[in-house]
């Protein structure tokens, strides 16, 4: 830990001071303002719309932090050769990866904490004004949805570390991470659709397509699992076993991604 902490701390400081973080926070602030405006246009649904929009804004802004700040934290070390100085210290490459990732977790947690505070403030403000329309509403569900969004962003960040360990540029890492996000968000829906009986579907799915979708389903992270915004907005029941298994799934995916990244990184050369 004595070796990981300095790496984590400088990674966090480098990330949190990045001007892009201020820009993303400002965009989120504007979107929270828009939430207040849009929600009041549908008075009877103001509670649901406010919660849904606030959580979507947090998720969107967090995604921007991972894609445009987080990826650079790792990839810039490689692009700009900062890694020469870091690896010249008595630290192993695995420690570098884990330390860097811990710094990334700190960055995601702190920025998401700030964004969540802004989101909760917007919801509290609307609830104070339109209290009568917040009938099906639960802070517990909102906070749970927020925490799962943080975990989803950490999973995505772990995958970006894996990509950065074998790609040669930050741009390729960014593209691969965006592709993973899109696939991860839509794959379970596609799989469910293709598993529908063909007489209901209206067409037959070839076994090759089905196998490819199944392989992708197990290979890519199922990010839609972490998305319970809808349940939070409508205060629908969320089982504790679902939450526990989702958290376990996320942690296992993170552990596998970071272990693989560290193994690949051990063999990587920096000419």
């Amino acid at each position, binding site marked *: 830990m004595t*070796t990981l902490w300095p790496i984590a701390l400088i990674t966090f400081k480098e990330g949190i001071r*990045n001007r892009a973080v201020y820009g993303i926070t400002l965009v989120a602030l504007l979107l929270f303002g828009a939430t207040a405006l849009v929600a009041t246009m549908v008075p009877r649904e103001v509670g649901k719309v406010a919660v849904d929009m606030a959580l979507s804004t947090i998720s969107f802004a967090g995604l921007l932090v991972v894609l445009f700040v987080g990826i650079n934290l790792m990839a810039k070390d490689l692009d700009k*050769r*900062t890694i020469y*100085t870091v690896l*010249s*210290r*008595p630290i192993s490459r695995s420690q570098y990866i884990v330390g860097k990732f811990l710094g990334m977790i700190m960055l995601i947690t702190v920025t998401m904490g700030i964004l969540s505070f802004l989101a909760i403030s917007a919801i509290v403000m609307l609830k104070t004004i339109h209290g009568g329309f917040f009938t099906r509403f639960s802070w517990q569900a909102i906070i749970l949805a927020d925490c799962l969004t943080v975990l989803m962003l950490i999973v995505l960040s772990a995958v970006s570390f894996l990509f950065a360990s074998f790609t040669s540029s930050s741009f390729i890492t960014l593209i691969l991470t965006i592709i993973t996000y899109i696939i991860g968000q839509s794959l379970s829906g596609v799989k469910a659709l293709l598993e529908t009986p063909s007489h209901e579907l209206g067409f037959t799915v070839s076994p090759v397509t089905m196998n490819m979708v199944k392989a992708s389903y197990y290979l890519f992270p199922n990010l839609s699992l972490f998305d319970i915004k809808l349940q939070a907005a409508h205060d629908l029941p969320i089982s504790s076993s679902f939450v526990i298994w989702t958290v376990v799934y996320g942690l296992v995916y993170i552990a596998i991604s970071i272990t693989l990244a560290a193994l690949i990184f051990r063999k990587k*050369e920096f*000419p």
Partner: protein
Amino acid sequence: MITINGISKEFKEGITGKCVKALEGLDLEIKQGEVFGFLGPNGAGKSTTIKILMNLIFPNTGEAKIGGKDVRDPEARRIVGYLPESPYFYDYLTAEELLWFGGKTAGMDANNIRERSDMLIDKVDLQNARKRPLRTYSKGMVQRAGLAMALIHDPDVIILDEPMSGLDPIGRKMVGDLMVELKGQGKTVFFSSHILNDIERFSDRAGIIIGGRLKRVDTLQNLLSGGKDLEDVFMGEVALAQGGTAA
């Protein structure tokens, strides 16, 4: 203190994966307290050798040790301070934070880091910029901050890759004085340069590398015997390597 035994390194280039030899059978030993200048033209293999010593790249054959430890062991770097060529650090960190990072990763305590940081920041003349983000630094200032970071843990072995590059005359004098001081402290210094004057001024011993092969290693006294200057010796070795005759 530094031992290099039979190191060869090939790089694959382009789409065809054509192999290019960067180092061929390099043997070198640098003793404790010695200042060793590594001289060679661009692309001769100086930086490749240093990157192998820092475990940034891996040799195809041979082995390298620092302080008796294989360079693949991170512990070998505990006694090493390294300044890469044209270093680049974190944009939003300050020089103080950079030195804190260097000290912490080397296992130093907070008081020791503070004392050494103050002393080194004074020495490399960054007092007025110590709390400024590194992205506001000039190239020379970044180089000096990198030098301070390399020395923060008072290493026994200092490896400098083109330490004078990008420095103005004042910066060059500062680095030169620092190298003389390190020599006085009995540190082992291994530095690469293609500036003959720097090798001549600071080295006890020098090695001339051309095309990945170590052509000559000797004390400065022996290299410059017979009234030759280092330029004559170097150009003679280049001519020999190109199939001509020494001057």
